């Protein structure tokens, strides 16, 4: 068993044992409510904590779960033992139904749209006449209907659910699923380019999250015995889920649990101690406590603690810079003009409003060649790449891979078809380790974490970053970032690699290193298309140039010929320069 699994189960048992000692019925109730809110926090965390799609509407799933359990018992005499798992199914379905339209939105728009669901449901349930439901008292079949005389049993049930939710979260976190969600949070576009099926993972996350919230709501109904729309669909419910998770630390297994363990009893304690003396003061103190934590540990207690541990562990000096790629690998490649065309653009066009960024561009990429795309700033190079890898849908023309049109395919599909890319401005997943960054790419062909890890380590070794595998991507040098992006693309085992201004901002020596690396990659059979707006380094690297100017192809051919082409010189250096050197 993993260490974390042992810790979680141990924690659950300790909690249950502690609860067994408490006989005071009020403290028992608090001990029951804490794990329920922990599960709710974990549910929120699974979607919003990991994927970064902040939900202000988790009350929708919670409330549906609660109402399902209550209505099923009232209407069909269904025992909560079956009702609560079924509430999970209801929550999951609701998550899926909410997710499909809502994931068209991003950022604040997503958060606000989520806010609408519980508010709407609140009115629907009022309109249906369910202002107040109570779970019928069943003294005749107490066990069957979860109406225990001994309230500790509720606590044990809630603690059991909490342990399950924690184990599930831990499992997700370590898997392809969890890493993909974090990659989405860090940079959704980069994740798509690395082959992550973002919508698929987001929908899975909201479905699982909805299920957890539904189960929490179902147990809440059984414990509270009364279900009203404001109590289960209210803003406070969504806020509570968010607050416990943010307080403890989003995107962690322990954060939401820690948040619930501290905040729920604190709020109750303040309420019980102060409310009769200064009514309302509990809210002020509670608010101040949250503000203090946000100021001191904005990412939550768990992250603060991790940062503290990392700081202490960082006594050992960081290893030396990346070792250069062995020159042996950069062997000469067999060259020949008659290699087959594997990838081409046919009369590709794209306009942004009145600006024609790309106009009727036709180009061929031949197997195993290094094709350089050059052009002055604003020539449409990056737009062309975005059309080639699916970020943009062309207004006209085709992108053809192996004779098949792929224009309009989503970036992750293009990536899966064998086209990897890097970005002009490096887009690493900053909060992830280098290894995890590259694993995201590796998952494309290796669904299991272990296999993806091996592939990722290989890719890191290929670019000379193997010894930094565990370092966070945040705080890397420019060169390391470029190499990391190449490694991430390589891990997806592409046939064609699109490099977008990979050499921008590097020193002369670093450029040399990179040229060696790219040559080596090409020698290993990879086809490379590289964008650059400076020509010097490119002349020594590429087999062939395509020159873009003002969105259209200006010239095409061998480096030697292109550098002499008057039209190219005009575009690059202006007519005067050619006249002066004529």
């Amino acid at each position, binding site marked *: 068993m993993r260490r974390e699994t042992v810790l979680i189960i141990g924690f659950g048992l300790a909690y249950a044992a502690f609860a067994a000692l408490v006989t*005071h*019925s*009020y*403290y028992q*109730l*608090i001990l029951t*409510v804490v794990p329920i809110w922990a599960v709710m926090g974990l549910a929120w965390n699974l979607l919003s904590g990991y994927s970064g799609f902040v939900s202000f509407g988790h009350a929708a799933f919670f409330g549906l779960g609660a109402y399902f359990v209550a209505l099923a018992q009232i209407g069909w005499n269904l025992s909560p033992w079956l009702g609560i798992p079924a509430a999970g199914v209801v929550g999951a379905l609701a998550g899926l139904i909410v997710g499909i339209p809502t994931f068209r939105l991003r950022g604040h728009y997503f958060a606000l749209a989520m806010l609408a669901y519980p508010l709407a449901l609140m009115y629907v349930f*009022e*309109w249906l*006449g369910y*202002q*107040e439901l*109570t779970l*019928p*008292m069943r003294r005749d079949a107490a066990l069957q209907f979860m109406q225990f005389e001994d309230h500790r049993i509720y606590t044990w049930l809630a603690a059991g659910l909490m342990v399950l939710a924690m184990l599930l979260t831990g499992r997700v976190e370590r898997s392809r699923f969890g890493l993909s969600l974090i990659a989405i949070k860090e940079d959704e576009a980069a994740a798509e380019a690395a082959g992550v099926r973002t919508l698929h993972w987001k929908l899975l996350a909201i479905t699982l999250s909805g299920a957890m919230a539904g189960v929490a709501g179902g147990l809440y109904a059984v414990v*509270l*015995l*009364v279900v*009203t729309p*404001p*109590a289960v669909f*209210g803003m*406070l419910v969504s806020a509570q889920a968010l607050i416990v998770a943010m307080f403890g630390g989003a995107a962690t297994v322990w954060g939401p649990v820690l948040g619930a363990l501290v905040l729920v009893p604190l709020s*109750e304690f303040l*309420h*019980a101690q102060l*409310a*009769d003396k200064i*009514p*309302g003061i*509990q*809210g002020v103190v509670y608010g101040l406590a949250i503000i203090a934590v946000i100021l001191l540990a904005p990412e939550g207690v768990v992250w603060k603690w991790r940062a503290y541990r990392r700081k202490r562990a960082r006594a050992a000096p960081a290893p030396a810079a990346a070792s250069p790629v062995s020159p042996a690998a950069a062997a000469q490649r067999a060259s020949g003009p008659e290699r087959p065309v594997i990838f081409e653009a046919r009369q590709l066009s794209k306009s942004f409003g009145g600006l024609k960024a790309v106009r009727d561009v036709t180009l061929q990429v031949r197997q195993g060649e290094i094709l350089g795309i050059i052009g002055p700033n604003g020539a449409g190079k990056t737009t062309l790449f975005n059309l080639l890898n699916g970020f943009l849908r062309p207004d006209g023309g085709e992108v053809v891979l192996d004779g098949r049109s792929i224009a309009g395919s989503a970036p992750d599909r293009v990536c899966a078809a064998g086209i990897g890319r890097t970005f002009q401005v490096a887009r690493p997943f900053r909060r992830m380790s280098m290894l995890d960054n590259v694993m995201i790419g590796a998952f494309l062909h290796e669904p299991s974490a272990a296999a993806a890890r091996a592939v990722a380590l290989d890719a890191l070794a290929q670019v000379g970053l193997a010894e930094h595998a565990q370092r966070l991507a945040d705080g890397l040098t420019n060169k390391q970032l470029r190499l990391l992006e190449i490694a991430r693309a390589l891990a997806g085992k592409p046939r064609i690699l699109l490099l977008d201004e990979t050499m921008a901002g590097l020193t002369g020596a670093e450029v040399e290193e990179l040229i060696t690396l790219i040559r080596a990659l090409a020698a290993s059979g990879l086809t490379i298309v590289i964008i650059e707006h400076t020509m010097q380094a490119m002349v020594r690297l590429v087999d062939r140039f395509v020159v873009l100017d003002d969105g259209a192809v200006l010239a095409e051919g061998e480096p030697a010929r292109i550098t002499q082409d008057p039209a190219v010189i005009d575009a690059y250096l202006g007519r005067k320069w050619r006249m002066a050197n004529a």
Partner: protein
Amino acid sequence: MMQTARAKAGLGRALLGAALALFAHTVLAQSKTVEVGLIAPMSGPWARQGQVMKTAADLAIATINAQGGIKSMGGAKLKLVVFDAGESVEKAKNAAQRMVAESPNLVAATGAYLSSFTLAVTEVTERAALPVVTFSYSDLITERGFKYVFQTSATGDQQAEGSLPALMEMATQASGKRPKTVGIVMDNTAASVAFVKPIKDHQLSKLGLELVVDEVFTPPLANATPLIQRVRSKRPDILLLLPTAISDAKLLLEKMNEFGLGRGRLPTISNGAAILDPDLRNNMNVAQLEGVMSVVANWPTASQKGFVEEVRQKTKEPWPTQHFVTTYGDMWIFKAALEAAGKADRAAVAKALRSMNLTDGAAQFFPGGSVKFDAAGRREAAGLLIVQWQKGVPVTVYPGKDAVAQPIWPR
């Protein structure tokens, strides 16, 4: 041997004496004070109503204690223990759990303002066998087969069924002729919808009334002009005006005054105590409230001599509202139950409540003039009052035996 036996006997006697002394001490301590609970929102959006309830309970207990406490218990004094039901069902239930866990000496409690709170609170108190008296309306409260809950108000269904017949009777008495047409202007909140449902379902046809205006709006109301214009053009004999938010009530009433329908010229009746709240005086011109009526479950009536004056003198409240009167009366119900029980014991108090049949004392604070609960725990005489704003104060105008003033009604 003898000595040992005597020593043992001595020890036994000493222990017995100590036990007796302890017992006597306990009994004496118990006879000194008897704890009763108030569980209501003391914080959050309903804190103001909770404070009103507390003020009422404090005043009643001060009076009871000044008059000699519980006489059957040697003049034991009542002591109020307050629990904050907060702003959510969860908080209310927590408070109830705290109440039963930390105050084992409580003999009874009243609360918890909102029906949903009361439902959750009584789930806890029922299991602890603590009797709770409530004025919450929800029919569910006394439909669950609980043994320890007592509902003093007419239930939601009773109110919805009873309001229009009561109004018709009052109108006929006041004006000498039966109204023939009725208008409804309401928001679409649950309370208003539930109130109007039986009226539209069967009462209009049963009472021979024609519905000439039927307008529903979604709060908050932005502009009352089109609604009131329709009322003016159809000119019903009576208007049911059912806003829930104070701001909507203000907008509608001001527009009615502007159109010459205010100040009793068009008999206008609402539902619930919100439109009779003292706070309304701070928000709008009191003159424009003149004549506005509302159907409520409780209000000061003619049977309470000097009560309104006493409240005005001893508290900061300008007049006792529904929650005030009821909570005040609840304390007198507790007193009567304790007098009958003769001991500070939940079971005995619950028994006394079940067999209670009062027509004086506590009974004067509840419409119908008697306190007797049926098997479900509902007060048998529970009925409705119609209260009308007259000269800046809401006064009871119906039914006749409870009325403190004649209704203003255009003839």
